[in-house]
């Protein structure tokens, strides 16, 4: 009772990274709250889900296995969670801030009248004092998220409503196995008790899912271009450097909006959060939204013709110069000095 629930996103029988990251965070919170970590999988042919999630410290895995639950559609998954949450009364429910989680989360929160905070960048446990009501709440979930285009960070709490719901983007939390031998229980749900036939009213006619070609999250070296790159052609320089160093190319939101790079390369609050060994920012001015998604990089080099670009304040090395001049030199001297 009053446990922590994580909704699992499943594609082709594989639990998504975002869900594993949430399980990792959920496990920490469960330890802190001395409660259980529970996971819900809704889909078809879910026999292999347990082996994927138990190592993350899942105590109970609920399986709703029904051909009609895959691919995801809104109403059946909503009905399942709403009914299950009414029965189990979780204190916290987490899901990915993905196209599924952001479709499902608000629906469930609306049905249960429970608060939901989208795109949290940090989750902590703490107390809250409602001064007007003269009431102190302990052990609440702090749902911490940027607001106002990233200019402020807000800590949100749900004092009275349960579950306290939050979504988190992929890559924001770290993924860490708790114990490869961790043993949890599996509970199979009788789907017809949770979902009505009428809930299956959306028909998925076509579906093309692509595996992401860009792997920013796991790259040790990231070369990012900003609006200052000027054109998609100039981005080629970045790909050249990335090829030579064995890195990946990222982009700021402004560069993506200008069409210099694809959306999946976007780094920052509305894109991917990265923590590489080396981050080279090229023509990136350093909007707060961008910095929030890369500030944990071990080493940051900024190449910018503007010596006062905001990103320079958080860079370890600031190279004042043009990208066209500096990058070919970096390639040249890397080739010369590496074995």
């Amino acid at each position, binding site marked *: 009772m009053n446990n922590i629930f994580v909704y699992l996103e499943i594609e082709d029988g594989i639990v998504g990274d975002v869900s594993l990251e949430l399980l990792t965070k959920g496990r920490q919170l469960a330890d802190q709250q001395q409660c259980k970590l529970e996971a819900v999988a809704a889909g078809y042919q879910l026999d292999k889900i347990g082996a994927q999630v138990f190592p993350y410290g899942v105590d109970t895995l609920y399986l709703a296995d029904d051909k009609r639950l895959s691919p995801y559609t809104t109403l059946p998954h909503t009905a399942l969670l709403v009914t299950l949450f009414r029965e189990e009364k979780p204190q916290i429910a987490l899901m990915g801030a993905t196209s599924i989680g952001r479709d499902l989360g608000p629906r469930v929160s609306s049905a249960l009248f429970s608060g939901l905070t989208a795109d949290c960048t940090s989750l902590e446990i703490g107390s809250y004092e409602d001064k007007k009501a003269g009431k102190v709440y302990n052990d609440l979930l702090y749902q911490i998220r940027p607001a106002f285009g990233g200019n402020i960070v807000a*800590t949100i709490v749900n004092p009275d409503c349960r579950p306290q719901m939050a979504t988190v983007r992929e890559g924001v939390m770290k993924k860490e196995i708790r114990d490869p031998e961790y043993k949890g229980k599996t509970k199979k749900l009788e789907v017809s008790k949770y979902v009505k036939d009428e809930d299956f009213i959306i028909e998925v006619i076509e579906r093309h899912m692509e595996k992401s070609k860009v792997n920013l999250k796991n790259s040790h070296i990231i070369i990012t271009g900003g609006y200052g790159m000027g054109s998609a052609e100039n981005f080629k320089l970045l790909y050249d450097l990335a090829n030579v160093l064995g890195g990946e190319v990222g982009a700021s939101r402004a560069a993506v909006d200008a069409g210099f790079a694809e959306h999946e390369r976007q780094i920052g609050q509305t894109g991917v959060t990265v923590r590489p060994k080396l981050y080279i920012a090229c023509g990136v001015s350093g909007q707060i939204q961008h910095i929030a998604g890369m500030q944990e990089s071990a080493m940051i080099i900024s190449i910018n013709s503007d010596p006062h670009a905001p990103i320079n304040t958080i860079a370890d090395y600031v190279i004042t110069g043009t990208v066209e001049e500096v990058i070919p030199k970096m390639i040249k001297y*890397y080739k010369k000095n590496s074995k």
Partner: protein
Amino acid sequence: MSFNIVVLAKQVPDTRNVGKDAMKADGTVNRAALPAIYNPEDLNALEQALRLKSKIGDATVQVLTMGPARAAEIIRESMYRGADGGFLLSGREFAGSDTLATSYALAAAIRKIGKVDLIISGRQAIDGDTAQVGPQVAEKLGLPQITYAEEILDLSNGTITVRRRLERGVEVVKGPLPMVVTVNGSAAPCRPRHAKLTLKYKNAMSVSEQQASSTDYTGNYHTFTIPEWGAADIEHEAQWLGLSGSPTKVKQIENVVFTAKESKQLTGADTEIEALIKELIANHTIG
């Protein structure tokens, strides 16, 4: 019977163009420094609605917005682009609403509008980026939803077919009307203002705007009054509106401050770049 479309739109501070004066010294947002704009994805939604209207013929497009009196601008802007009219939901009872309280109020207003076949909104607003209000309204109305819509492909025999743009793919889905659809920024951009409509509706005002205005519009041929509803005009229970209807509370707001590092300053000179590369190789950052 005509096909009735309601577009949910929001007036938002333009958080994409935040200058240095957007934040006050105490860390709060200086709203005065941020221009109020039509939420970008709501314009994509309006375009989908207007396309349907011209395709169906016998259809109406009404825009529903909740906000302060100045949000009547959203209705006017929509009419300049081809919407038939709209409703402004405004009043102090709505102040402090989080997404859930907002969706409760919007759902009540939609019920008051009456027969609605399709509700279209932007996926999310740029001041919160939550993408919650659309699905929460759908749940409150007991309607199905299609989020992340990029194009409405077909509307026939009481069903709607929509192409959705997801993070990692594309889906085509079909479902029954009435339906709530939320539209992605990747959808077609909204048509520009129509010159004739802009002239026709530039004096369209809500009642409170008319009262605040010094010009006497009585007898003006082109005057169009934008209906303005307060809490008393919609069927509601007070506990679900505004602050009391908002389960989420803001505990704390902090200005974002990044710790500045002591940076080494380099020029693009060959010797400096080579020294840097050698250092990165030596400490195993690269290579």
